[in-house]
């Protein structure tokens, strides 16, 4: 259990490295594979609440370190209405929210129905992007929602979700190597069957 938890933390850190190799797909409305979010979501459903929150903090903290923009600067007399930046740390709460969403269907996952979690990972990514967009709108004002933005969010969610079976396979393999069961009820069922 401890070994598995430690490896999921390392896996999340490794996902930040992988993310650097995944550029935006200009042909698909600048959508991208959000690998960090995907690894977090898949890991969140396989661990307990305290570990999920730890992962959410690590992911949110590092994601903001990667993405936060600085303030514009300049003479405030000229730039009297600066565009507000999002505060560093907001992603921690978003990751936490997504984690709780994933843990909501943990009972199904424990029964071996991982595909529900895979589907929910796509939905969570979409909600995560929508929440981010809404926060930006709330902070900066002037609500506008272009079709291209909706498509960008949809393609990003679907593209990312397509990789969730791969991440679940990795997590199952890691759990098996650590001698830890991440879906105990399904394992019991399998044992009874045989």
């Amino acid at each position: 259990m401890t070994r598995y938890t430690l490896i999921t933390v390392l896996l999340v850190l490794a996902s930040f490295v992988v993310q650097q190799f995944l550029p935006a797909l200009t042909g698909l409305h600048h959508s991208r594979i959000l690998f960090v979010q995907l690894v977090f979501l898949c890991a969140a459903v396989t661990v307990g609440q305290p570990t999920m929150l730890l992962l959410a903090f690590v992911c949110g903290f590092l994601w903001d370190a990667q993405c936060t923009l600085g303030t514009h600067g300049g003479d405030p007399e000229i730039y009297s209405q600066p565009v507000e930046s999002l505060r560093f740390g907001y992603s921690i709460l978003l990751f936490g929210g997504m984690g709780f969403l994933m843990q909501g269907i943990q009972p199904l996952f424990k029964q071996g129905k991982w595909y529900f979690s895979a589907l929910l990972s796509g939905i969570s990514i979409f909600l995560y992007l929508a929440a981010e967009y809404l926060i930006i709108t709330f902070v900066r004002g002037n609500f506008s929602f272009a079709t291209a933005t909706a498509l960008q969010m949809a393609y990003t969610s679907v593209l990312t979700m397509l990789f969730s079976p791969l991440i679940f396979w990795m997590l199952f393999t890691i759990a098996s190597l650590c001698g830890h069961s991440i879906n105990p009820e399904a394992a019991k069922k399998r044992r009874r069957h045989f």
Partner: protein
Amino acid sequence: MKPLNLIAILLFLSGAVWALTRSERTVREIQASYFSAIAPFLKSGSDTEAYARSFLDEVRHSKVLEAELATVNSEMGRLRIVESRYRELERENAQLRHALDFKKATSFNVAAAQVIRRQPTTWWQTVEIDVGDERGIGTQLAVLSNEGLVGIIDRPAKDRSSVILLTDEACQVSAKVEDSPEVGILSGQRGQFEGTPLLRLKFLSKNAVLRSGQRVFTTGRGGIFQPNILLGTIVSVEKGAEDSEALVRPAVNFADLGTVFVVLSQDPPKK
């Protein structure tokens, strides 16, 4: 609820509040540490992206031609900027001689850079270039191409820097319209990733008389951008109750950014 879960939630919330209340300086330090830790992977990542891009380009051009073209383009862009600057200096010098018989010493120094990553984040319109602290790059330096203003340096690292593009909402520029008394603040618009993004020139006078095709330049006011850098051309004007706004087509083709120039030193911008 289990006590352990409750403690975990409390710790999580405390951590989130701690992060949310960090000052900008602390955030910059955190970012510097993060990017220095991840630097080798960033380099490999951008190399992969650049390789993929050049592989696609290779369908049309041989590698030798491409390298020659990049060098020539880079040199041509630099010379164009220098030439335009000299023209401006000539004009300024003539004006000053005429008015005050005064000669002003100026210097103009740019660092050429290549765009190595495009849009590394989901919502912000940014690129990364291959020069950083080592070449004297600091925050809030103007970035130009031979077509006009590209953006502003946001976060310099050792050998790379992040540039907020003019098409991003957060990049505001004090702008003036040629042959017109109109001045305003130009910035990008949210969520414009497709095609040619249009910029919005705000805070124009209520009865602004502008026509399509008029060029927009930096005013040089505000302490960031130097004056007379081309920003774009007017597309249309929207009259409001209190002021007018204009849509501006950027002078720079942001979809095809290759070589850019960071203005290291110039005449100090007007406050």
